[in-house]
């Protein structure tokens, strides 16, 4: 398996040989930031294209197919349009908070994006409380959403933001509980160690058998709710609230929300594939050495992306199947079903681990 840290340590050494230490760190930070932002933009565009095509196929349509081959240039045109649109500044709004809110949302989204393990040794934010950090930073997004709704001085925005607050804060409980369940199994909160463990001993979704599988499903449901998507999209429910909390945003300010929404979906899928499906770890079957060697030739980032897009497929499939829930139904689902289930899973997983029933 190719170790990306070979390249990063070579770059580090090369930079150190020509410039002082503080400048090296600065240059590396800028490079990493550029890389992250580029990847962010590229994946947002890919996601928008995939979403539009998938949604069309579910609805027996073809989707965008006019601009470029199979409509692939359509997304680029949409991005250019978004970049060149006017940013309208409104009277009687809280200007400062109104301008700040999209940056909070997109910052939370980008920072969590940086937590994803792309390859062995290719991880931007990696330390011993990675999972905890991921959850903590991810929660900043909801602050941005609440501020957006409050500062716009618009009833639709405010209703959307209140719904988003109620929903995201509720579902974060489930996500946290499921993460705890899996940390019982992994024994570490560092993403690189989680991936390394899975590369050596098999994916956690197999090792934790039915408990991990149930936790995976609960994670997908709660993650979808965190992203304000699918049947849980009532913070922005366009048929009742125009666009919910980002009703009053235009141009690239709106674009940030748009980007963050799609990237949050990607991050949700990425985190699911990291914790349950092994991140960059290849698929290995113990005992079949020839097969395992072939699997190990495939680079880690390909494995990671394949897994992410598999989870994305599940999320999109679910998103275009179910109708939007009412706010009381959403909260009922969380508080009456998902939280008891995830608590039960946590207890079961703890029992399994302590009795040595996992693999």
């Amino acid at each position, binding site marked *: 398996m190719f170790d990306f840290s070979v390249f990063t340590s070579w770059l580090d050494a090369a930079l150190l040989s020509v410039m002082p230490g503080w400048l090296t760190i600065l240059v590396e930070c800028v490079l990493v930031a550029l890389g992250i932002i580029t990847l962010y933009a590229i994946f947002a565009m890919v996601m928008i294209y995939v979403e539009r095509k998938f949604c*069309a*196929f*579910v*609805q*027996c*349509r*073809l989707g965008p*197919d006019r601009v470029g081959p199979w409509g692939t240039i359509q997304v680029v045109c949409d991005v250019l349009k978004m970049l060149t649109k006017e940013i309208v500044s409104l009277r009687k709004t809280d200007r400062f908070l109104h301008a700040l809110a999209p940056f909070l949302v997109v910052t939370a989204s980008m920072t969590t994006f940086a937590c994803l393990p792309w390859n062995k040794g290719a991880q931007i934010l990696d330390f011993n409380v990675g999972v905890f950090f991921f959850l903590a930073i991810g929660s900043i997004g909801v602050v941005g959403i609440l501020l957006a709704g409050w500062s716009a001085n618009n009833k639709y925005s405010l209703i959307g933001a209140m719904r988003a607050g109620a929903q995201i804060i509720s579902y974060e409980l489930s996500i946290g509980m499921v993460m705890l369940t899996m940390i019982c199994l992994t024994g570490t909160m560092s993403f690189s160690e989680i991936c390394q463990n899975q590369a050596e001993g098999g994916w956690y979704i197999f090792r934790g058998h039915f408990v991990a599988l149930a936790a995976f499903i609960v994670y997908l449901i709660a993650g979808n709710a965190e992203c304000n998507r699918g049947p849980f999209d009532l913070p922005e429910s366009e048929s009742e609230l125009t666009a919910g909390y980002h009703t009053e945003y235009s141009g690239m300010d709106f674009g940030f929300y748009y980007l963050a929404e799609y990237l949050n979906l990607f991050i949700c899928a990425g985190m699911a594939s990291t914790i349950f499906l092994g991140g960059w770890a290849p698929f290995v079957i113990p005992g079949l050495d020839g097969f395992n060697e072939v699997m190990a030739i495939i680079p880690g980032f390909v494995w990671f992306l394949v897994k992410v897009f598999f989870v994305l497929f599940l999320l999109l*499939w*679910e998103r*275009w*199947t*179910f109708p939007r829930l009412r706010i009381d139904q959403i909260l009922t689902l969380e508080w*009456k*079903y998902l939280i008891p289930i995830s608590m039960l899973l946590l207890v079961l997983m703890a029992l399994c681990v302590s009795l040595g029933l996992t693999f």
Partner: protein
Amino acid sequence: MANTSYFAGLIGGIKSLCTGLGVTFRELWTPKITERYPENRKENHIPERFRGTLVMPHNENNEHKCIGCGICQMQCPNGTIKVETKMVETADGKKKKQLVRYVYDHGCCMYCMLCTRACPQGAIEFSPEYEGAVFARESLFKVLNQPGSKCVEKPARPAAAKPAAATEGAKPAVAQPQTADADAAKAKAEKMAAAAKKAAENAAAARAAANEAKAAAEANAADTALQEAWKEAEAKALKLETAAKNFAQKAAEAAADVK
């Protein structure tokens, strides 16, 4: 919902969600029904009853069925139709409306079909022609009758229905086939036929008056004034009848020329 227990509701919910996922998963692979319009305009099938635009069908002789009655114009709730007509005198001396221009404002039409339902002649109908986009508002005004077209002629009525004197002269002229080469002769024949008809009518009227005068005179033989009037009326009727005969003969000759 209220009657089901917590676990039954949970299991039932999961089942129904899985059913939904199954439906969309199957739908993912079905052939897509999107019509790729500009590429498929050759094979694109539009149902016949689709109301795309109003048309006035013309037959192979460039004849339509519109009699210019204007009922469609009155029926149209939007003022979409404007029927321009003129009064013409037919060969048998009747006044008749004739269509000049049938103007249809496609931009105003709401495709309710009240005009086509109201038309007593079945002269207009909706066609599934759907490419109605134009570059200027004025282009939406369409003249539905083709240039040089005319109303299709109905077969002539039976001779018995017309005055005896008139039919002799007028009938051949009316029954003429409409050929383009003998325009002048035709016009003359028609003129003569009209004159003959008028003369015949005059003669008939005079004869009727004379008959009345005769009856009156015979009733009171003593009244010399009535006798005089009878004689006068008789003379006038005879004169007019002779003239009518002459006219009829001339009309017949003119009709023969046309043939």
